[in-house]
Every structure is written in structure tokens, then in C-alpha cells.
């Protein structure tokens, strides 16, 4: 019997190492095959957790806590695992077609992606605070490597800014872990759960504050978003897609995990402030997305805005539906943003430039890509029947039930602003091209994978119920 918990971490580690040994630029098929296996494992795990209705654990090497490392999968972590593999598999197929054999940006794409996915999967499965720190760093370092690959000075500078931001974030988290260990002598989330109460010593409050603040920096919550647009906007398209869709969600998941788990007794004090930052992120990110000139920067600022929605749920978590809304938004944005960056990669390859103004004529020559971009835009705006609609609808419902009118207003305004920047791109693309204009052919695989991701982001809205049921497993909600 294959234990999905261990293999979800081992499999990407294995194919990443093999891809590295095969040499630069090789290992695409290994990655795609490995990811197909991971998706199969994640789906199997989701069925098992959903059917059993409770968390599944695994002690690495037969050594349990406190000496060994415990892995655990409840509804929330299984959902995030599922999202990771669902987004990564089409992106791997996309990346194989995207990077030409001698493209310097693609030389180490496969090993780094494998390590990134191993880190992400391990993060979603970890059950103790220190192991979570190690996985956070694994994810951060692999992501910085991916951003910097093959780039010029601006891209290396973006990677360095990202590296320093992520290191400060995980440093603050580590200091928090140190304080928690000093206070309670354990880092196991399960053991800490009953120990931390509202009467906890001040040291524990400081620790909680440091950890959440560090993670907010890593999630690029406004005003800590400064590192995200250059890093996500400057990287090659498959990398931008992986980072925007998955990596920022990892630290969000961790905030949510701490907030619902050990810090539940402390968290209420910060809930309104967190939501306020989320609202500011939606407005500022959307405003910048409407103003910027380059297509990928527009999409990156849209990520800043869409991440804001995730933080609106925190004042509502005591009521029903808020957690579901947050995870649905993570899914909707993950799939839609991966599709959007994938489509942007096609447009940039075809037009040979990345300014929004230069897209004229693209709709005529690349209708499938534009359709994918539009569908992803439907999800970001939150139109029915997309997953984005479901997420925003649940968020508004939860906010109305608790009389949080400001949140309702921000969600509605954010949808309108998203429409402005999505239509800004579509309008340019539907203009007729100047006669002198060259549009280079692109591999069909690129267009179809972008379309598949966008279609999933819309169709997931019809399968939302299964996801909601999965979340109930293991007592997270």
C-alpha cells in the first residue's frame, strides 16, 4: 500500500533530483509523469479524507513526535494539495512547449519546479511549527531560483528583492517559533492547541504577532506587496504562473492554519486590521493593474488585488461559510491566474513584446488564447458560474450575516475594478492590427493548456459542493 502522504513529498523530490542529474534543460517528461502520479495520489487522498471525514496522519520513518516528524492531512490541507497538483500538471505541459532546448531561462526549470512542489506538498502536510519553517524556506529558495533563471539585471534584482523579503518573513516566523518553544517546550500544533489561551503570557502574543506578520510579508499582503510585481512580472510565463497561483497561497494557508488552530484564542484582536489591509490590497492592486503599461505587470498587480480577498475572511471566521469562501477564492484565483499568465506568455511570444498597447490584432490571430484570457477574467471578476463567483458570493453572504457592510462594499467594488483591467487587455487585443504587424506562430500546446486552466477555473464553480464537503473533514471548519 502506497502511503499518499509520504509519496506526495518523495515523488517530486525524486523526479527533481533525476532531472538535475540528466542535465540542463532535460527532464520534462519526468516532471510531467511525476506530476500525473502526484495528481493521482492527491485525488486518492481527497477521496479517503472526504469519505472518512477525519484527518489522516503519518509518522515519517515510524518515528512520531516529539522526536520524529509527523505528517497530517485534514480537509484544508488536502484541498490545498489538490489545488497544487491540479494547477501544476497543465503548467508542466505548458512549460515543456514554452522553453526551447537552448533557452537559458529553462535550463534548471524542472529540478527547481520539482523542489518547489516537494516543498509546497510538505508544507501542506506538516503538523509542527518548525517543520513548517523548513518547508517555507524550501519553497522560498526554489521560487527565488526560478525567478532569477536566465534573466538580465532587472530580473536578478527582482529575485534578490524577493529573496530578502522572503528571508525576513521566514526569519520573523522562526523567531516566533523560538518564543513558542521557550514558553511551552513543544512545536507540535496538536499539542499547542489546548495550551494557548487568551490568558497566555505576553511572550506568546509577541510570538503570534511575529509569525503572522512574517507570513503576511511572504503572502505579499498590502503594504508588504512591493516585492511581488517585479518578481512575478519579470519571470518567464510558466514560472510567473506557478508563483502567483501557488507559492503565495502557501503562506496564506499557514496563516489560516495558525489562525484556526493554536492562535484561535489570540486572533480576534487582529482580525479587523487584517481585513482592512486586505481591502486596501484590493483597491491599490486593482488601481495599479489599471495603470501599468506591461501585460505581465498588470497580471501581477491583479494578484496583489486578488490576494486581498483572502484576508477579508478573517473577521468572519467565527461564522459559517467564511473558510469555504477563502479556500474557494484560493482555488479560483490559482486556476485563473495560472491561465492568465499562460495566456500572457502566448501573447508575448506571438507579438514579441509585452506592452498592453502592443496587443492589437492578437484576437484575430490567437482567438483561443484570448478566449482563455477572457474566461480567466470572468473568474477574477466573479461572474457566474465561475469559481470566483462562488467565492465572492459566499464571502458576501457571510459578511451580510454578520453585518460587515464594508466587506460587502469592497468585494463588489473589487469585482468592478477587475472588469476594468481585464477589459483593458481585451479591448486592445480586439483592435485591428496595423498592416506591418508580425504575429509569430506559437505551439498549439501553449494555447490549449492555457485554455484548459481557464476552463477549469470557470467549471469548478459547478463542482463547489464537493470541495466544501472536503473542507469539513478533520474539524478545520
Amino acid at each position: 500500500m502506497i502511503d499518499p502522504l509520504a509519496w506526495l513529498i518523495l515523488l517530486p523530490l525524486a523526479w527533481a533530483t533525476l532531472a538535475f542529474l540528466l542535465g540542463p534543460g532535460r527532464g520534462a517528461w519526468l516532471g510531467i509523469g511525476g506530476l500525473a502520479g502526484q495528481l493521482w495520489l492527491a485525488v486518492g487522498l481527497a477521496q479517503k479524507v472526504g469519505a472518512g471525514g477525519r484527518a489522516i496522519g503519518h509518522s515519517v520513518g515510524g518515528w512520531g513526535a516529539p522526536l520524529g516528524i509527523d505528517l497530517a492531512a485534514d480537509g484544508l490541507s488536502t484541498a490545498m494539495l489538490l489545488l497544487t497538483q491540479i494547477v501544476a500538471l497543465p503548467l508542466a505541459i505548458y512549460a515543456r512547449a514554452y522553453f526551447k532546448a537552448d533557452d537559458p531561462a529553462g535550463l534548471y526549470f524542472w529540478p527547481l519546479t520539482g523542489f518547489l512542489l516537494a516543498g509546497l506538498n510538505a508544507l501542506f502536510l506538516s503538523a509542527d511549527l518548525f517543520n513548517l519553517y523548513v518547508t517555507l524556506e524550501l519553497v522560498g529558495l526554489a521560487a527565488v531560483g526560478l525567478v532569477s533563471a536566465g534573466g538580465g539585471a532587472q530580473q536578478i534584482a527582482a529575485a534578490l528583492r524577493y529573496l530578502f523579503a522572503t528571508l525576513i518573513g521566514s526569519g520573523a516566523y522562526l523567531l516566533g517559533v523560538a518564543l513558542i518553544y521557550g514558553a511551552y517546550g513543544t512545536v507540535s500544533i496538536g499539542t499547542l492547541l489546548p495550551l494557548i489561551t487568551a490568558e497566555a503570557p505576553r511572550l506568546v502574543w509577541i510570538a503570534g504577532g511575529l509569525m503572522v506578520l512574517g507570513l503576511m510579508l511572504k503572502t505579499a499582503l498590502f503594504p508588504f506587496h512591493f516585492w511581488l510585481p517585479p518578481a512575478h512580472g519579470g519571470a518567464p510565463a510558466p514560472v510567473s504562473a506557478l508563483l502567483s497561483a501557488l507559492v503565495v497561497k502557501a503562506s496564506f494557508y499557514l496563516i489560516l492554519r495558525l489562525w484556526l488552530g493554536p492562535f484561535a484564542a489570540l486572533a480576534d484582536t487582529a482580525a479587523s486590521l487584517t481585513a482592512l489591509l486586505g481591502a486596501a490590497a484590493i483597491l491599490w492592486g486593482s488601481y495599479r493593474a489599471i495603470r501599468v503599461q506591461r501585460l505581465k505587470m498588470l497580471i501581477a498587480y491583479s494578484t496583489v488585488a486578488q490576494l486581498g480577498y483572502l484576508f477579508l475572511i478573517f473577521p468572519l471566521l467565527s461564522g459559517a461559510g467564511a473558510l469555504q469562501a477563502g479556500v474557494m477564492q484560493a482555488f479560483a484565483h490559482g486556476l485563473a491566474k495560472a491561465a492568465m499568465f499562460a495566456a500572457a506568455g502566448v501573447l508575448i511570444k506571438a507579438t514579441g513584446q509585452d506592452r498592453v498597447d502592443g496587443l492589437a490584432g492578437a484576437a484575430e490571430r490567437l482567438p483561443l488564447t484570448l478566449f482563455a484570457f477572457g474566461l480567466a477574467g470572468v473568474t477574477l471578476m466573479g461572474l457566474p458560474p465561475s469559481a470566483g463567483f462562488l467565492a465572492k458570493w459566499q464571502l458576501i453572504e457571510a459578511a451580510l450575516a454578520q453585518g460587515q457592510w464594508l466587506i460587502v462594499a469592497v468585494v463588489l467594488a473589487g469585482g468592478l475594478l477587475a472588469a476594468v483591467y481585464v477589459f483593458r487587455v481585451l479591448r486592445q487585443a480586439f483592435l485591428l492590427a496595423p498592416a506591418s504587424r508580425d504575429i509569430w506562430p506559437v505551439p498549439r500546446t501553449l494555447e490549449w493548456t492555457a485554455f484548459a486552466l481557464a476552463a477549469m477555473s470557470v467549471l469548478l464553480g459547478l463542482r463547489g459542493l464537493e470541495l466544501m464537503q472536503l473542507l469539513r473533514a478533520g474539524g478545520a471548519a
Partner: protein
Amino acid sequence: MTSGLIFAGAGAALFAMGVAGVLLIEHLLRRILAFNLMGSGAFLVLVGLAQHHDAPDPVPQAMVLTGIVVAVAATALALALVRRLHGLTGSLELPEAEDD
């Protein structure tokens, strides 16, 4: 005040200095050193605070060893990137960000 608390206090001070360095120093090599100072501060807190019982506690020591490995890897990555940036621009400071 026990020796453990003194270690922890010193660790917190080092951490704060390290963070200030990473945020404020322009020169990239010094910034990487500041990051290492920050990490050492956190490790000192981890080992120091856990020492309030008489016997030394092996768990935080194992954690600090793991943390040191992570910090070395991060430093190596940062140095490689700085070297590349230096090769491309001839400068050891970050260029102005293009924000549109």
C-alpha cells in the same frame, strides 16, 4: 536573571539589528551579512529560552542545526545572485526598480 534569559535577550537584540540591516543597508554583501546576523539571533533565542530547566534540551539544538543548514543555503543562493548581478551591472547595489 538566568544565563538562558541573557542569551535570549542578546538573541532578540541581534535579530532586531539584523532586520534593520537587511532593510536599510544598500550594499548587498553587507545586507547578506545582516541576514546572517538576524538568523543567528533567532537561533540564540531558540537555544537560550529553552534552557530554563537544568538539563540542556536537545530538541532546540537539533532545530538550530537544521536552521543553520537552511541559512547557509540561503546565503549561498544570495551570493550567487549578487555575483551574477555584479557581472551584469558591475555594481553591488540593487538598481532602481521598474514599476510599470
